[in-house]
């Protein structure tokens, strides 16, 4: 490793961002071609040694970055905040997709009674639902279904294991049933 390579390594490290070849040539008082040559040697050596850091050329710039082979451990180490758990609205949307799949956004919004665009894209990002074709009606809306990640998350082996929805949970809770309907079921409770 020569002096020029050392200097380039230090500069690219401290910068973090891509650095112009011309800028390094000025600072190190040499020809841009020499910079290219030295940076290339460094880059090749790092790749050959399969180091944790690499140097990549981006046009007339160079940048140091961590090796993509190490992306997993890097992400795991640096993630300070655990990603948030599913909010209740995400969980609702996911539930509707799980039971009614394949389902369009319009249909699930109809069931939930609220706009669900954000929930759908958020669930897509988390790999809990995925697109599965389009419904053959005007507008050809996208159909969604749950993913294998969904099954894993909920400890299910297949969709057949989805807990059965009891009739009660489908109906309006008793306290919200209008009076006339509620008393009908009770013998002798004539109005």
């Amino acid at each position: 490793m020569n002096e020029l390579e050392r200097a380039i390594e230090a500069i690219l490290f401290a910068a973090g961002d891509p650095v112009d070849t011309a800028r390094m040539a000025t600072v190190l008082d040499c020809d841009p071609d020499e910079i290219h040559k030295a940076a290339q040697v460094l880059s090749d050596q790092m790749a050959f040694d399969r180091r944790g850091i690499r140097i990549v050329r981006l046009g007339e710039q160079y940048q140091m970055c961590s090796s993509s082979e190490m992306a997993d451990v890097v992400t795991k180490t640096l993630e300070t905040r655990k990603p948030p758990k599913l909010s209740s609205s995400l969980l609702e949307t996911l539930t509707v997709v799980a039971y009614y799949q394949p389902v369009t956004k319009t249909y699930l919004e109809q069931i939930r009674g609220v706009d669900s665009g954000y929930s759908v894209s958020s669930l897509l990002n988390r790999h809990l639902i995925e697109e599965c074709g389009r419904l053959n009606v005007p507008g050809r809306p996208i159909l969604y279904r749950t993913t294998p990640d969904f099954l894993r998350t909920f400890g299910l082996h297949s969709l057949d294991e989805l807990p059965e929805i009891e009739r009660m949970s489908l109906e309006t809770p008793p306290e919200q049933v209008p009076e006339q309907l509620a008393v009908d079921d009770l013998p002798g409770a004539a109005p």
Partner: protein
Amino acid sequence: MEEPKYHLTAVVKSRAENLEDFDGPLDIILQLLSKNKIEIRDIQISLIVEQYLAYLEARKRMDLDIASEFVTMASHLIYIKSKMLLSAADQQEALSEMELLMKSLEERKCKHALEQIQIGKTYLAARNEIGLGLFPKQPEPLRKDERYRYQHDARDLLKAFAMIAARSEKLLPPPVSSFEGIVGKEPFPVTKKAAQLLKSLVSRGVQKFREMFRGNRSRSELVATFLAVLELCKLKSVFVEQAESGEQTVTFLKMPDETKMEEQT
């Protein structure tokens, strides 16, 4: 810096109002005095002086730091005690003298602490530039992986469903899974049942509707029988009527058109 320790008999007020012995350095005596744990009248200064001299004797040398501290404190003790003995009116003044003494003791400690700090400061000053040329860098932007990494209970799905139901105040369309075993599949084919019925009707001509269900083994077979009768009616293959007795009877008319039967399956 080792300090001489003193032993005084029955000077410290204990809880039981008995006086206990004291063991410790002079500044502790002063602290206890300031906190009214010791009465100045109980302290024999001559005893303290004796013990101090014995300490010097044992060490065989004079520690100027300790000596000056001792003289300062002991003289204060004598001063305070003599004031106490003179009149009770001077007590207040004596007590503030005590506080001053305490304060000067604290200041001495601070001064010493700061002197000690200079040792560390000198060491650090010499190293001030060592790391100034070591440049760290900004963290690399994270490559986001939003794959979901929690475990849920499958019952969470039911809770979510209940939430939707409660909010929507209307009946949700039941999902396909709710119809399983009812109409979703046809475990007992209607066509097969229709064929059985026709065979039986052809041989007997007329049969009670109720009898058609005899020997049916499952709910789905019952459903198939009912549907088969309705279907055969629709195809004008059989005729259902109510007799005088109120009993429904099924009468065979003709064999239905085969192709239409097949649509059933």
